[in-house]
């Protein structure tokens, strides 16, 4: 624990570096594209259109909970898709971040955890750039916004803690077991469908099966995405208890992830 605080203090000293690396990441990512940072919300938007077409228009099952309205379903999808993209991109990029920046780790002295932190933060910026579009959608096609939307930062904090913990764990382990990259890509697909994003948690087949509802309830991302759904899409009070427990789980993952990272740190310069 004392080590953890020492590391966090050290990390804080590098905040200017983190800040600059995040802005570099953002600048570099869309350099050379015509639309530039607009891609930050075109990407989830296009993904939303694909899923709306499949589950809202072809399979139709998705929209029954939304008064059979494809537009309302699309807004629901977008509400979950945007934070999910934050999480999945952070995780996938974290898996690679130490290897991609191997040159830095080998030649320059700085705390390596800066790299997964930068990954999670730059994806947070993308997420935030998508938020205005989401708000417009919620106001125009959705149920409107309520006072509960102000609790969005709380939900984001829970997701942030969880993503950082997961990112630290994944990034350090991938250095030793590159297999994780491939496992993770597939795992995230499974994870995506095990999280109520394209369907609501209240969906009949989930509520009827105790296996499915237990599985979904054990998934921390369920409660995080539900948090977004309740305070943005439904405009209701988030489920504080579930969100609180998820936050604790996120903290535990963060401590474990950081400990593993710290433990493996010395091996990075020779293994990346």
């Amino acid at each position, binding site marked *: 624990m004392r080590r953890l605080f020492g590391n966090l203090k050290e990390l804080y000293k590098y905040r*200017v*570096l983190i800040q*600059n*690396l995040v802005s*570099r990441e953002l*600048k*570099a990512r869309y*350099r*050379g594209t015509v639309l530039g940072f607009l891609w930050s919300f075109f990407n989830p938007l296009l993904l939303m259109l694909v899923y709306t077409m499949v589950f809202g228009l072809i399979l139709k099952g998705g929209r029954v909970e939304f008064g059979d309205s494809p537009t309302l379903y699309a807004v629901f999808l977008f509400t979950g898709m945007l934070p999910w993209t934050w999480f999945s991109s952070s995780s996938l990029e974290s898996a690679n971040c130490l290897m991609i*920046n191997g*040159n*830095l*780790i*080998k*030649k*320059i*002295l*700085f705390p390596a955890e800066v790299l997964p932190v930068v990954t999670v933060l730059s994806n947070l910026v993308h997420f935030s750039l998508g938020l205005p579009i989401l708000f417009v959608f919620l106001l125009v096609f959705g149920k409107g916004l309520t006072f509960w939307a102000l609790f969005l930062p709380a939900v984001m904090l829970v997701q942030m803690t969880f993503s950082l913990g997961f990112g630290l764990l994944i990034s350090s*382990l991938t250095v*030793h*077991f590159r*297999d994780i990259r491939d496992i993770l890509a597939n795992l995230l697909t499974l994870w995506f469908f095990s999280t109520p994003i394209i369907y609501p948690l209240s969906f009949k087949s989930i509520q009827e099966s105790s296996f499915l509802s237990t599985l979904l309830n054990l998934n921390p991302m369920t409660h995080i995405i539900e948090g977004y759904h309740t305070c943005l899409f439904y405009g209701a009070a988030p489920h504080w208890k579930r969100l609180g427990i998820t936050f604790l789980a996120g903290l535990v993952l963060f401590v474990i992830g950081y400990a593993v990272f710290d*433990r493996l740190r*010395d091996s990075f*310069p*020779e293994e990346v």
Partner: protein
Amino acid sequence: MPAIELEGVGRVYQKYSSRHRFQTFKSALVRGDIFRSLQASELVTAVDGVSFKVERGETFGLIGENGSGKSTLLKLIAGIAKPTSGRLRTEGKISALIELGAGFHPEISGRENVFINGIMLGLSKKEIARKFDEIVRFAELEEFIDAPVKTYSSGMYMRLGFSVAINVNPDILLTDEVLSVGDAAFVPKCLDKIDDFRRRRKTIVFVSHDLDTVKKICDRVAWIKDGKIRMLGDPKRTVDAYLQDITAKQEAEFQERAAASTVAAAVASQAIESAPPPPPEEGRRENRWGRREVEIRKVTLRGLDGTEKHVFHPEEGLSIEIDVAAAAPVEDFVFGIGVFNSLGTSCYGTNTQLEDYEPKLLRGEGKVVCRIERLNLINGTYYLDVAVHKRDGYPYDYHQNMYSFLVSSAAHKDVGVARLPHTWEFSPAVAFGPPDKKIR
């Protein structure tokens, strides 16, 4: 208090075999004990029990062959790698010029990269802003600083990297072979900067293969071999000892090769004993022809002091000793030698006939010595033709390319075929400092 202090510092690297790695992964998944099963299958010792102190303000050189552990040692001092044994202590802010421009992002501009690189090396944003113009001017990149770094040439890239790193203004500067990248104009500028550091009593650890510079700028030099300190002390003596060691190694390699080629030639010569001389061919092919009415039994290369050797300094002499034997007395004979470089260019050739020696009689066994007072050749490998033939060219015994020697000197960098003896003179209007002044 010394700036850097090492006490029995060692660094062992672990090598994991892929099979072992799979097992680790399996056991990690099955039993969940990643750390215990991360045991190495093979250990490589890169640095082995090294102890030394570098005082504040000292310029300390590290020399040694590739793979001797110099760079690992530097990374240990920089804190990038951790020692597996021993104690290491440093005092003050360290800047390591291990790889210039490490961390430059190709897609963003030089300006942004300067900021990020500077922050990584420990400067604050304000400090960088203050030094920015100087950094850019030093790198001579005023026109290109807003272009993405991917459009830079490798020289521009390195210049910018050096310029940022040198402006970090550390207490201890670690440099690893960074000067080898600059062009003829940039290197002196870098050396000036390093010299400036020395004057300001900063500590420098200087790793380089450029032994002349090491001798010039270092106060003390450590020679690292196989991860251990072989010698530590006065720069000139340490560098000389290191050079001697390299020469001895080259000599041993040469003798090995020479032995191998003599055997090959002996085998080849039996097959072509009575065959006509082959047409002279391009490149170097070891050959021997002639009916051996007069036979060259042995050719020995010696220094002027008589010791047998194969590696020579450009200004050293060489004596070629030829043991000959005539089956029956002959009255017509010419001895000749030819020196060729590795491209097959004839550097020098002569024979007794060209120098107007009148042959009278050769009977039984004898010895011919061609004594070259000074080689005056540039660095490189040379091949030797040795022959005995009649005045009309009819060969008794012709050895083509069968002997070789190496001319080697770290101090000589001149080019061409031969090293013409020369000196430089300048009228007062043409001013040069003495050769050493650039550094001291």
